[in-house]
């Protein structure tokens, strides 16, 4: 049965487009000087402008436009010289003005793309537009369940109202829920690199609406799409889309019709539910906001902003490969997560051994933090201390085996490697005189291994080296021990 279903599924192609909202981390709101204040006491950062009092006048936050241009450039967009704010009209209690200031046919950026690395292939996702708008207030539904449908009344907190919001809209180029997830990871990584938003998923600083439909591979006709709103986790995005794709195919297979709807993903049931049918009220009557004069984005401003764009993840990956000599896989791992790449580069600042830094981060370090469910930065090991550890290995102060012990101690205590080695007496023994004495003892006590070696079994030497290591509690320099034994037995 399973295979039969898989075959039917294979007849269909998934078509996904994403709209991603990103809250900028400017000091103040988009059109007024109220401070941005996630988590503050409700309604403590409002003013006549963000409360929509009659007669108040919005003024554009220059930094927000700068950041929007920065984002648009990083997403390979053309910057529109003439950009205009429009009013998007609709009634909802989280909007004090009864319109949202947004952009319509004259956004800041158009016609860009993001290359999404899927491992075995690259999906080019075209970006239709990057535009600027303001966020809404927050509704708290008061009732026994906290759900809107069962609420007695609602409370509005306007602290968030007017927060600068960037909307990034793609073409329907995404072909699977997995690609959608990877797109969002890639986008988030670019935004973190640009330092324009904290991109916190939990706080909703970055959230996506996903449009999805399925069509027969053999047909050019697109299927009816549904939209899943407000997906603020990579996992929810992927699972919600997977559920929707299956649901669409099931409906079509059983002869039904997909209805155009806005849906909501519920992680408890791992299903999507109808929020609303595409209503006739989807009529926003956009018109240019007469309170705001148009923007004229000139070349020299764009060039100035261009100069502030740091090295982007794709360029990083290439540099790691070409100049640091990392493998394809390692470069991608180091470059495509902002936290990892920034940590990695900080390690390199203190000690220049990229391959070793990469190996520690991908190996032991990842194993430890994954076990504890924390991130590199949340661990007690600073980049400087990791660099210190690698330096000690490179200068042969400690060997690889001891390094693993020191690393574990660093991870548990946050101490620096020099202190740990002193405290625990773990310094590598490189002193040949000292080693020769121990080696002489080992040779005397193991005549069998010695004779095996002499009769041509070269492997027997590793047994002897092992004995020396055991006697020195792992502190001997194994290479030197190896050399001395060979010399003594030849």
């Amino acid at each position: 049965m399973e295979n039969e279903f898989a075959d039917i599924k294979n007849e269909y192609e998934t078509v996904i487009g994403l709209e991603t909202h990103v809250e900028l981390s400017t000091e103040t709101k988009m059109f007024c000087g109220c401070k941005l204040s996630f988590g503050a006491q409700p309604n403590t950062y409002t003013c006549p402008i963000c409360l929509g009092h009659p007669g108040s006048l919005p003024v554009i936050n220059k930094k927000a436009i700068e950041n929007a241009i920065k984002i648009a450039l990083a997403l390979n967009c053309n910057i529109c010289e003439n950009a205009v704010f429009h009013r998007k009209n609709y009634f909802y209690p989280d909007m004090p003005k009864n319109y949202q200031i947004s952009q319509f046919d004259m956004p800041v950026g158009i016609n860009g793309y993001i290359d999404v690395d899927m491992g075995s292939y690259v999906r080019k996702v075209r970006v239709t537009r990057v535009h600027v708008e303001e966020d809404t207030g927050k509704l708290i539904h008061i009732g026994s369940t906290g759900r809107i449908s069962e609420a007695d009344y609602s409370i509005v907190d306007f602290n968030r109202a007017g927060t600068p919001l960037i909307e990034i809209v793609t073409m329907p180029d995404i072909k699977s829920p997995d690609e959608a997830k990877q797109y969002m990871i890639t986008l988030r990584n670019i935004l973190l690199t640009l330092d324009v938003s904290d991109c916190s998923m939990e706080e909703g600083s970055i959230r996506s609406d996903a449009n999805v439909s399925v069509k027969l591979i053999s047909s050019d006709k697109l299927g009816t799409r549904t939209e899943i709103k407000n997906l603020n986790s990579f996992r929810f995005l992927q699972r919600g889309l997977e559920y929707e794709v299956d649901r669409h195919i099931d409906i079509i297979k059983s002869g039904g019709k997909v209805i155009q709807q806005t849906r909501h993903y519920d992680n408890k049931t791992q299903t999507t539910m109808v929020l609303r049918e595409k209503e006739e009220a989807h009529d926003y009557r956009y018109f240019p906001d007469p309170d705001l004069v148009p923007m004229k984005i000139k070349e020299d401003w764009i060039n100035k902003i261009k100069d502030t764009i740091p090295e982007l993840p794709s360029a990083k990956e290439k540099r790691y490969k070409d100049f640091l000599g990392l493998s394809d896989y390692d470069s991608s791992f180091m470059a495509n997560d902002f936290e990892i790449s920034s940590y990695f580069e900080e390690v390199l600042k203190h000690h220049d051994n990229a391959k070793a830094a990469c190996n520690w981060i991908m190996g032991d370090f990842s194993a430890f933090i994954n076990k504890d469910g924390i991130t590199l930065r949340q661990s007690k090991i600073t980049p400087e201390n990791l660099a210190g550890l690698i330096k000690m290995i490179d200068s042969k102060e400690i060997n690889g085996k001891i390094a693993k012990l020191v690393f574990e101690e660093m991870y548990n205590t946050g101490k620096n490697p020099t202190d740990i080695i002193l405290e625990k007496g773990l310094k590598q023994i490189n002193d040949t005189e000292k080693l020769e004495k121990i080696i002489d003892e080992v040779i005397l006590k193991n005549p069998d291994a010695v004779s095996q070696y002499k009769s041509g079994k070269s492997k027997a030497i590793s047994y002897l080296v092992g004995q020396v290591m055991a006697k020195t509690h792992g502190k001997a320099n194994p290479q030197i021990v190896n050399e001395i034994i060979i010399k003594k037995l030849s």
Partner: protein
Amino acid sequence: MGKIINKKDIKHIAKLAELKYSDAEIDKITDQLDKIINHITKIGQADTSNIVPTSHVLEITNVYREDKVRISFTREESFKNAPLEDEDGFKVPKID
């Protein structure tokens, strides 16, 4: 002059604006708005073939403010125009 706007349009706009009217009011508004819009359509007769499209009446662009914090309302001040409030915020009726 033909009819530009009809009762269905008025009902639609009223719904978008969350306004409720009686049938008699709808008839009256339809008639009045139709006259107004008919009058305004005269503007369409103007020759705009050599005019660059504008989105604003003023010929100024690029009015910005720096990203500097200004003092906000106190909570008491912010609630002054609220029909209903409780200790946390503006109180609104159940949303359907």
